[in-house]
């Protein structure tokens, strides 16, 4: 049998990967993807914990996370398209005009 700790470890690793991606990549789309990775890492630990406690709550939280992810993807991608129309680039550092 696989102990809970293994699942948590996997989820932790995935989360770190996602975080790294957010910081290292210079492409908005990839950054969004990295955020998806982080979300999924969290989902995994939710499901694992839920299984551990024998309740379905964990899975339900996962559904909510998925919904939020879907919304986030829709808006985020719409933003990406809009940005790409203005500056012919996807580099987040190209969109720094919104400051003091």
């Amino acid at each position, binding site marked *: 049998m696989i102990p809970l700790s293994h699942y948590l470890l996997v989820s932790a690793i995935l989360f770190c990967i996602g975080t790294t991606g957010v910081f290292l990549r210079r492409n908005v789309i990839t950054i969004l993807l*990295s955020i998806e990775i982080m979300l999924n890492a969290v989902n995994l630990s939710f499901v694992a914990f839920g299984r551990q406690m024998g309740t379905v709550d964990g899975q339900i939280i996962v559904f909510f996370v998925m919904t939020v992810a879907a919304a986030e993807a829709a808006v985020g991608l719409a933003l990406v398209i809009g940005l790409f129309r203005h500056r012919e680039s996807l580099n987040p550092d190209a969109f720094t005009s919104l400051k003091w």
Partner: protein
Amino acid sequence: MPETLVFYLLSGLAIVASALVIGQRNPMYSVLMLIASFGALAGLYIQLDAPFVAVAQIIIYAGAIMVLFLFVVMLLNAPTEDGADWDKAHPLQLPAVTRLGSMLAVLLVIQLAWALMEAADINGPVAGQTGAAAVSSVRQLGRTLFTDYVFAFEATSVLILVAMVGAVMLARREGERS
């Protein structure tokens, strides 16, 4: 034993795929790798007696969200990101900043590891106390979702609606009507 083997295979696949998502510059490949990682995660969910979540993972993430990403990547004809020379001057590229960042990253990893150490009774088998039936029944899932979490559910629906409208408004060109 097969179960453990499957677990290691799937989690390995998930980790490698995720690493590749951020490991190369072509967003197309990133998307595909992410899909692969999602597939592996779905497998893990099945191992955790959550078949419904697994299927939802495939349908929603792989089937819808990722297609959306793919669509956008193709629509913008995915320029592979411009090289590092662009932002030599960027403040975030200053050595001090990068050093601080890497230090923080190491710190986070340590903290996560520590947290895993701290957490109690996580070394027992995950499917220990309760039978699979308790968590795998879709009926049970639905009942809980529509009783205990009904408010959250409704709120989420509103969220979706808002997101939809927002996406439509954002994505259409200026001066374009309907």
